[in-house]
């Protein structure tokens, strides 16, 4: 499907990272895990509340120039590579928008996150990706597909549990049917019989359950080796690892082997997509962050039964109060010399964009 692909595969790397967390069974007992989850949850809500309280802007918030200076001090802006005046103007505008709350800043810990992101990229480029290429070279695609299906079955308890936590009886029935079908007719999960029969694959995790019950996502975090997440998402992962508790019953080498194969297998499935996304994005970090956040928001929206498939920005995304103004600006610039106020007339607004731009280019 046109346009679909780069974006829909974005959500799959995220799935790889969800798998990685299942290793956590090895390192935390059930009880300590619950403790950590509870701690994280309190921390997350505390943080978001604090953030909201602190972010309540005083009526006369920082003037934009002050914000800009702070930004430069952070070393975030890299002056010198551009026409300083224009970059300055752009920066001021963005700072003002953030200050006014028109763009809520989803990523207050960007410095840390970018560092972690770089680390993960290194790990992928030198570790996972070569392994995945080798894996794809030596295995037939049918085996890889089988492993994917098997892995999906292993994760079903998580899906089922979260379906129940979100009070969705229909989903629960579907999930149980899927487990039964695939575990028996599907030869222990190697063949996805359920999909052939027409049982949909639901997609739930504890992060979504938390979102479903209204827990705010908290700031965006890139976890070392676990990839993009939010505070809520990380807590959700810990919670989900309870759903695959059976893994800690295996000897440790077996866990590592099974998990390792599954991860590499999944990574092998998206080799080209990762490449393309990396090559084509203008800022891969921002690309992944936004894709992750938007996708999560949409999934939680769907879980709550909202038909809200659009990124929450809604009106902000598609309209600007000054849209007419942009069009007008072309004509204003064209007719700058006489400085008359004719542009206010509605039909000159309508006719201006084309004509104005043409005049300008001559």
């Amino acid at each position, binding site marked *: *499907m*046109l*346009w*679909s*692909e*780069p*974006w*829909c595969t*974005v*959500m799959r790397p995220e799935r790889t990272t969800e798998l990685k967390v299942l290793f956590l069974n090895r390192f935390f007992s059930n009880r300590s895990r619950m403790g950590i989850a509870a701690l994280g949850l309190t921390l997350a809500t505390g943080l978001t509340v604090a953030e909201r309280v602190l972010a309540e802007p005083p009526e006369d918030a920082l003037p934009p120039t002050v914000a800009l200076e702070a930004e430069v001090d952070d070393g975030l*802006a*890299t002056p010198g*590579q*551009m026409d300083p005046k*224009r*970059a300055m*103007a*752009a*920066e001021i*505008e*963005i700072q003002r*928008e953030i200050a006014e709350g028109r763009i809520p800043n989803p990523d207050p810990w960007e410095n840390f996150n970018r560092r972690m992101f770089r680390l993960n990229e290194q790990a992928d480029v030198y570790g996972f990706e070569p392994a995945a*290429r080798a894996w794809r*070279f030596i295995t037939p695609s049918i085996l890889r597909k089988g492993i994917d299906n098997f892995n999906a079955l292993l994760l079903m308890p998580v899906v089922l549990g979260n379906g129940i936590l979100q009070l969705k009886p229909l989903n629960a029935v579907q999930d149980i049917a899927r487990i039964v079908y695939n575990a028996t007719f599907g030869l222990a999960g190697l063949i996805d019989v359920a*999909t052939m029969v027409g049982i949909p694959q639901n997609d739930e995790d504890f992060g979504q359950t938390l979102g479903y019950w209204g827990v705010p996502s908290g700031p965006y975090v890139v976890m070392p080796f676990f990839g993009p997440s939010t505070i809520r998402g990380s807590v959700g992962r810990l919670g989900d690892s309870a759903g695959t508790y059976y893994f800690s019953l295996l000897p440790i080498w077996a866990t590592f082997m099974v998990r390792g194969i599954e991860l590499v297998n999944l990574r092998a499935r998206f*080799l*080209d997509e990762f490449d393309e996304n990396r*090559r*084509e*994005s*203008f*800022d891969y970090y*921002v690309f992944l*962050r*936004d*894709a992750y956040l*938007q996708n999560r*928001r*949409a999934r939680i*929206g769907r879980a709550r039964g909202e*038909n809200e*498939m*659009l*990124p929450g*920005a809604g*009106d902000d*995304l*598609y*309209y*600007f109060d000054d*849209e*007419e103004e*942009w069009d007008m600006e*072309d004509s204003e610039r064209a007719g700058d010399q006489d400085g008359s106020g004719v542009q*206010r007339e*509605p039909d000159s*607004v*309508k006719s201006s964009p084309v004509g104005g731009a043409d005049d*300008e*280019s001559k």
Partner: protein
Amino acid sequence: MMNRSRSPRWERVGFQGLVLWTGALLVLWCQVGVALAARPAPPEDPEAFVVAPTQLVAETLEQIIAVLQNPTLSAEARRQEIEALAFAVFDFKTMSKLVLARNWKKLDPAEREEFVAQFKIYLSRNYGSRLDRFRQTEVVISGARVEPRNDVTVFSTVADGEYAGVQLDYRLRQRDGRWRVIDVVIEGISLVANFRSQFREVLSRKGPEALIRQLYKKNAQPDSESSDATSTETDS
């Protein structure tokens, strides 16, 4: 006498009245015009309103899938045909504006034109070339919705293949009587929103010239198709 003394008075009043009335009407008309331009009234019959854009999406999808499944075409020809379809259906100027948002104002007109042209090439190259993996896909349109200010979103779902269940939404806007796509939302990930943040990042760090330069550079990269072909060759 009376007549003569009255008539100028009448005329005067009439003239003033005329001026006042036309003035008032003009003001009213302007305001109505501005209000209409800003927020058109919602359609009376949303279901009928939605028919045209839905049909446009359905037809385009059909055509694209037909091209993809046509075995007689070479990869290059396929891509060109799909590009032609996309060029007709997407409103690249509006997309560029939405993607740049407030930064649009910071580009001067020459830069704007350059940006629109390059962004168009960028999108068609990078996304057009990926299509070859999607031969046996079926997309089902599941509904449509009227958005504020009379945009329309058409919802669709991939019915089979590897990406079964993936949700694709298209947002369309009518301009000059033509419906055209202004955003594609895949699994909640909006093309416009995603590019907007990426471009904002580049713009705030390096400025508009750098952004356009970067676009040129990406467009000048060796064709992604050929590099894909080599990578799959070595892998499998």
